[in-house]
């Protein structure tokens, strides 16, 4: 299993970055549409739209590093798809990352550092 540690680190970073951005956006969406009248375009700040755009591209990177990791670990199709989809569901990428982390520990694939 070559390069598993590097692939896991890359996946880990993306899972957290994508997850944090998506979680923040989810909270922002609820507050915005619930209390700040975001259905009126005028009251929507530019940063809100920019962050959604950012999440779109972060997810593309998440897909790439996720699939790289899944192939290195020879994950079955279903597990791979679940990990990949976790980047679109709020908070799911944190659980996916923890799931992979546990699996790597159990298989004793983590570098000792």
């Amino acid at each position, binding site marked *: 299993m070559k390069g598993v540690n590097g692939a896991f680190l890359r996946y880990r970073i993306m899972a957290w970055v994508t997850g944090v951005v998506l979680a923040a956006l989810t909270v922002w969406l609820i507050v915005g549409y619930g209390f700040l009248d975001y259905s009126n375009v005028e009251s929507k700040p530019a940063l809100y*739209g920019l962050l*959604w*755009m950012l999440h*779109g*591209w972060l*997810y*593309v990177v998440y*897909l790439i590093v996720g*699939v790289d990791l899944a*192939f290195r670990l020879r994950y079955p*199709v279903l597990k*791979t798809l679940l990990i990949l989809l976790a980047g679109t569901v709020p908070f799911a990428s944190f659980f996916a990352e923890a799931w992979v982390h546990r699996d790597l520990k159990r298989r004793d694939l983590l570098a000792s550092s």
Partner: protein
Amino acid sequence: MLRLALTPRWLVAAVVLLALIVAAFFLGRWQWDRTQAILAAERAAIAEPVDVLQVLADPVTDPLPNEAIGRPVTVTGSYAAGRQVLVANRALDDAPGAWVVTGLRTGAGVLVPVLRGWVPGPDDPATAVPDVVVTVSGVLQPDELFYAGAAPVDAQIVAISQEALAGVWGEDVAPGFVVLQSQTPEAPPAPTPVPPTIDVADVPFPLQNFFYAFQWWIFAAFGVFLYVRWLRIEAAKETSTSLSE
């Protein structure tokens, strides 16, 4: 590999993949159409003339907001006596002459500079300030930036700017100026209207929908990649097991 792809399990996978590709294609197309629809709606919204006071900043003497530049606007009020100035050395179709800028006082008391048009010379009868309440339709322009600091020569200014007009007229004026395209009622003799320098206001591009369109298509390509990769892995596995038997 082809034999493996034709087994029932992989055929089902291929059907699922095809459905996903079709779905992603249409979702991308939907976002693409939305991009165009949003652009068209934004452009239509700014092509509709609005009262100039709606697009000026608050207070009105603050610099012109970017989205106000090039906006079709209307101004209603009466031309203020003594609030007219000529802009020197402005040709129309190569004929030398000057531009006539007159302050239009709105009901709210704001003095809005209106570029009424071109006259061949300062003594032209069209330079008379009409004494009627008018509605001017025109295009809002930003201050002219060249020679902005130039002093008036023979009571004619060199470039139109809020500062120059306020200096000549001795009172605050709105920033920018409205290039008159038509006026109701007309009050002949009038200067010849000139075309606006900037006649298309800018609209924000719906980048988010534009990106989403591409991302859906990227996902479709990604699905194909995954299918092929998994098929190859399984095909390689089968070959190695059959070899070891």
